[in-house]
């Protein structure tokens, strides 16, 4: 979630500074609120100009906070966050690092320092390499599907005239379902013996059997994981679309661009930061939060076809009680996720237009 703050910052002010945006428009329609809306519009230039005098190169909307001299207050304000990070991130990470160079029995009565043997064993292990490949497939496919479907749904939001709130609620519903329950639902619906959706696939002549076909199983967990996460992407995209200046869209419409063209040429590029942020979040979701779905839908099978890294960490640690290997895997997974996120920032970040 940390990565989000620098990206989201410019967005929040855009919603306020665009008087023609959907949010502001809706304010105008209700008579009681219209005066307040106009007042906010009138106030803004004054507010925006003040910081600009001192720092002419500073972007509008980004303000420097001033806490006076000394580090006392900032430290105090940061303390709760730092404590949370320490207890839920740094200390566990340190423990995992320590455990990853040990060979120990589950009860901890027998502990040997083996240095990097746990890591060496992992790289020599075909099952682990297969798990890496599976994870890449799983996260990339999940990311693409989630974003693509969420973009379409967000695009369609403006076109749904009747029952828009029902439409939104329906899309947001999966987010309220616990991953394990979602997994069981999907497993049942697509169960080749009794699942109604599996029967439909069979009727269409598709030999669907996730118990015996590794690809079917992988698709099933990708679909389940995407379905669970589409709503998350949707919220951000739908809000992002509201911030696209209506004047630009209207100008394009006057020039003869259809809704789809307007969407791809104007709205989507302006959503760049949001899409980029979502891509990073989807990767993190795919890497770390999908284990309950895997556990409920396939147990990592058949023959390890859906055994993604985070599920393997769980099975080796909590079922097999191989704590050293499990810790080494979680260290590698963390490194892997870190590299992915850094690469995304390195290569995609400067192509994203934040200046909206």
């Amino acid at each position, binding site marked *: 979630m940390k990565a989000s703050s620098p990206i989201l910052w410019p967005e929040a002010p855009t919603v306020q500074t665009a008087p023609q945006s959907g949010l502001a428009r809706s304010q105008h329609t209700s008579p009681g609120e219209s005066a307040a809306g106009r007042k906010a519009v009138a106030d803004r230039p004054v507010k925006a100009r003040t910081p600009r005098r001192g720092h002419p190169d500073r972007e509008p909307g980004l303000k420097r906070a001033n806490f006076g001299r000394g580090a006392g207050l900032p430290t105090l304000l940061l303390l709760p966050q730092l404590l949370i990070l320490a207890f839920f991130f740094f200390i566990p990470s340190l423990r995992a690092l320590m455990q990853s160079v040990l060979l120990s029995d589950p*009860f901890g009565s027998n502990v040997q320092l083996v240095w990097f043997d746990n890591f060496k064993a992992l790289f020599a292990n075909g099952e682990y390499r297969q798990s890496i490949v599976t994870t890449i497939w799983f996260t990339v496919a999940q990311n693409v599907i989630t974003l693509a479907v969420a973009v379409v749904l967000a695009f369609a939001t403006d076109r749904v005239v009747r029952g828009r709130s029902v439409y939104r609620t329906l899309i947001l519903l999966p987010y309220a379902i616990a991953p394990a329950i979602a997994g069981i639902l999907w497993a*049942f619906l*697509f169960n080749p*013996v009794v699942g109604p959706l599996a029967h439909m696939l069979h009727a269409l002549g598709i030999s669907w059997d996730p118990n015996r076909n590794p690809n079917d199983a992988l698709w099933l967990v990708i679909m389940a994981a995407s379905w669970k996460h589409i709503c998350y992407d949707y919220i951000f995209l739908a809000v992002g679309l509201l911030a696209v200046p209506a004047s630009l869209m209207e100008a394009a419409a006057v020039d003869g661009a259809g809704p789809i063209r307007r969407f791809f040429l104007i709205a989507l590029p302006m959503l760049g930061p949001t899409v980029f942020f979502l891509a990073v979040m989807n990767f993190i979701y795919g890497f770390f939060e999908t284990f309950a779905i895997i556990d409920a839908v396939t147990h990592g099978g*058949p023959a390890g076809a859906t055994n993604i890294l985070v599920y393997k960490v769980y099975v080796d640690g909590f079922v097999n009680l191989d704590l050293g290997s499990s810790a080494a895997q979680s260290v590698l997974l963390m490194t892997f996720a870190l590299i992915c996120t850094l690469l995304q920032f390195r290569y995609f970040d400067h192509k994203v237009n934040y200046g909206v």
Partner: protein
Amino acid sequence: MEALTCWTAEEEPPMKKIAFIAAMFGVLALAAPAQAARVEVQWWHAMSGVLGDRLSELVEKFNASQDKYTVVAVAKGNYDEVTNGVIAAYRAKRPPEMVQIAERGYMTMLLSGAVVPVQDLLEQKGYKIDWPDFIKPVASFWSYKGRMSAMPFNSSTPIFWFNKEHFQKAGFDKPADTWQELEKQLYAIKAKGVSECGTVLPGDFYWSLLENYSAINNQPYGTLANGFDGLGTEFVYNKTKVVSQVVRLKKWLDDGVLQIAGQGLSPEQLFTSGRCSTFVNSTASHGNIERNAKIDWSATFLPHENDINPPLNSTIGGGAIWVMKGHTPERYEAVAAFLDFVAQPETQVWWHGVTGYVPATSKAYALARERGYYKEHPTREIAVLQLSRGTPNDNSRGFRFGSFVQTMLAQRNEVEAVFTGQKQPQQAMDDAVKRGNEILRQFEKLNAGKGTEWAPESK
């Protein structure tokens, strides 16, 4: 105490305060003897559903039978969750007094240094338990150097369940004794259109269809008497009939005689709903099948190979009660009293009757027989007879492999690769053995110091 100091500090205590203090003493007086009288101990277990209710009943029976001790049964999820819970609790130095652990965790618990062997405890506390009376495969599984390390609690073994009507319609009296004949029957049932599914793959097929298959058919699973003679044991099931068993399962699967239920559905449902004609599963599913089956079912012994005669005993699954280290003597008094209660024939017979688990002792079995229990419930006797037939040898005594859950999961993975068509059975079993042996070597390395006290016990 604070109230008292307040009172002494004041010259004239107001009446309200005196009444309050009196009430406090009253409460203390009521609460104190109750606390002193009963020693409370915890028992973490993995039984859920009907079995969980029965377990609670058992504990209530014990608590009601005497007034010195209270056992508190705490359901901690499935076996894996209980194991993880007790490990975390032990590391935090707050373990429960007793914990129920599945059969695969035997070596982990035995060598953990965190347990008190039950036989030592019960002898020390002066309880006379007829240890040799325990049914042999049960006793040998849970004992080390001839002494019981954990109290056998819920012991089961796989048996062969079948749909009577399907067999009759296809013209058979009952399922055949051998795998070869049974195969013909199942294919005939499918060919005649009696049912489209001959049998359903059990969720724990590695236990019933591979490990127990190996024992019954007198095949070695690992060297050194399946691990009973030392930590240096290696898997050898890639050179035995287990490979041909995997070939058979793959053939049945390809021909549609064997079906996989998959996630979102329990294999048992495919049998109890009448879709599949047979089902290899634990005798402990008696409760569920009696309740859910809408079919005319019965059960019999697991089949054996036609060139193996007589077949040997099957091995057990299920759990035992381990006693954790680090508690006070009076708590161990309570634990010993409870374990003695569990070992009583009356308790065993009751538990056997309400759950389907086997009675752990010969006395309990004789008692159940005497009362004519098996006349009414003939299928409940199968597991006992199958477990106690013949004399257990090195191949059928049980399995003693370290990290047995991990080696089993590696093996399951490889068998699934056969089912998906990615590997040939021989290749898959070779790979499973190779992976399993790496895991065994790591376990041996970790417990190297403990290997020296290991004396061959099977001879």
